[in-house]
């Protein structure tokens, strides 16, 4: 048989970030000194960078007890070239090509709604609010594929405390950056932008919910939601809003993008749940990204394997009804 096996790489060796950094430095140097003897492919990359200006910048991080252990990390290449970010195109390879135009600086996050007083946070201040932690999480997409991603950030609750929400705030809504002149690919679908996602307050306050600034120890590549996003590892990936510009505290459940698009397919809760099928496919199993086609299938875990930390949030709820 002609079928090759993807070599097994120990997770310690999988991080090609040094090579990434070196190459990038090499490219910068090459352009600066006007060395023209670059291959066409590399030149193309210089003029149409796959990542934003700051992506790949090293972040200072600390260890976290909330990190997931015992999983082989998905490669940086796959995490950054297999993305759902419809504002930059509906195909998985498009965000890596197109998201370079996202202006990640200057960047502010508006806080409004049921708070003591509306505020605006600058990205630089948010980066310094708490020590940045390395947190490996499983990432389960509603489309039944999964990755293991080493995110960088701190618990969303730390940020929410700074927002000083009122006791009437029951939900929190996240709005993503949207400018139709910048994200001209967004019209390839009938979705109404900006992207909106939301969590119940107690979900948002769960320490696993991560306010995220980086991955693989570096600033987030634009296609992964730079410069600031959330990661909610026990929910399907679309709940984790990218490139957040506004956070609203509300007394009612906010409208959310995919739920608006198809209520029967994408519930507001969208907890990873192998016994509640998507109407169009089973959620019992998933395809792990980066494996050979015959080795991709694996069992999907309830709450994506984070039940110990989050199951209590849904005590007494019918998760088939509130899927």
């Amino acid at each position, binding site marked *: 048989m*002609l*079928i*090759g096996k*993807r070599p097994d790489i120990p997770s310690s060796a999988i991080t090609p970030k040094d090579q990434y950094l070196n190459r990038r430095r090499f490219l910068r140097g090459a352009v600066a000194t006007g060395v023209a003897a670059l291959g066409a492919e590399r030149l193309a990359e210089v003029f149409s960078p796959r990542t934003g200006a700051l992506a790949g910048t090293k972040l200072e991080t600390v260890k976290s007890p909330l990190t997931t252990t015992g999983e082989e990390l998905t490669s940086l290449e*796959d995490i950054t*070239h*297999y993305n759902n970010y419809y504002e930059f195109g*509906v*195909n*998985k*390879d498009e965000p890596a090509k197109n998201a370079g135009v996202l202006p990640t600086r200057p960047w502010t996050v508006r806080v409004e709604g049921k708070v003591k007083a509306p505020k605006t946070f600058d990205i630089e201040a948010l980066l310094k609010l708490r020590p940045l932690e390395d947190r490996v999480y499983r990432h389960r997409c509603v489309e039944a*594929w999964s990755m293991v991603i080493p995110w960088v950030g701190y618990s969303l609750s730390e940020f929410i405390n700074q927002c000083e929400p009122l006791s009437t705030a029951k939900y929190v809504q996240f709005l993503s950056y949207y400018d139709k002149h910048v994200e001209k690919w967004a019209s*390839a*679908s*009938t*979705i109404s932008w900006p992207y909106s996602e939301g969590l119940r307050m107690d979900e948002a306050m769960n320490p696993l919910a991560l306010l995220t600034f980086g991955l693989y120890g570096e600033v987030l590549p634009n296609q992964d939601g730079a410069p600031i996003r959330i990661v909610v590892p026990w929910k399907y990936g679309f709940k984790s809003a990218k490139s957040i510009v506004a956070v609203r505290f509300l007394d009612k459940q906010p409208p959310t993008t*995919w739920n608006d*698009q*198809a209520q029967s*397919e994408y519930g507001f809760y969208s907890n990873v749940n192998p016994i509640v*099928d998507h*109407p*169009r*496919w*089973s959620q019992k199993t998933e*395809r792990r*990204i*980066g*494996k*050979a*086609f*015959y080795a*991709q*299938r694996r069992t999907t875990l309830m709450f994506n394997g984070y039940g110990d930390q989050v199951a209590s949030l849904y005590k007494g709820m019918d998760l088939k009804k509130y899927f």
Partner: protein
Amino acid sequence: MKRSTHLLLKTLTWIACVWPLGRLIWGAATNHLGADPTATITFATGSTTLNLLTISLALTPARRLIPELSWLVKFRRLVGLFAFFYATLHLATYVALYAGFDLHAMAADIAKRRFITMGLTAWLLLLPLAATSTTWAIRKMGGKRWNRLHKLVYLAAVCGVIHYWWQVKPGVLTPLSITITLALLLASRPVWSLWQKRLRNRNAVPTAAGG
């Protein structure tokens, strides 16, 4: 057409039809099927099926518009059979890589998921066409009956496109271009018949000269 030209064109058609499969095999052998190989294989076999079906349905309108191209019809059977071949690969991908040969899972999928039901319907519609593709079958059935049976290809193509729309997320418009192409090709048939009828009528009954 000269024999050698025919042979050359046939070879080129074969190469073009085998090309998508060759790319998949090469990709599997060299680990270049992308981050999600299962999805790559599924999409490649499915879209090649629809593309080949579309090409096979484009041959008749093409030779009607340009009579010099009537030799194209000689390749229709080959293209059609390749469409069935890729449809079968697409189905096999589902059976092996999605359902893991689990009959219960497949039965549940077919009963519950309309896009799978529709895809299977399209494949079942193509099956008798592939089975009766031999010259022997045409002779045995008689041209008229054979032609009537092979009109099922229109229905199969429509089912294939619906299957595609039902598979993508609501609001995603990727199936639009193949849908428009197929719609034009299918619509061209009644339009052509109507036009021919009008031409015939005009020739048969010369309009009464004014006055």
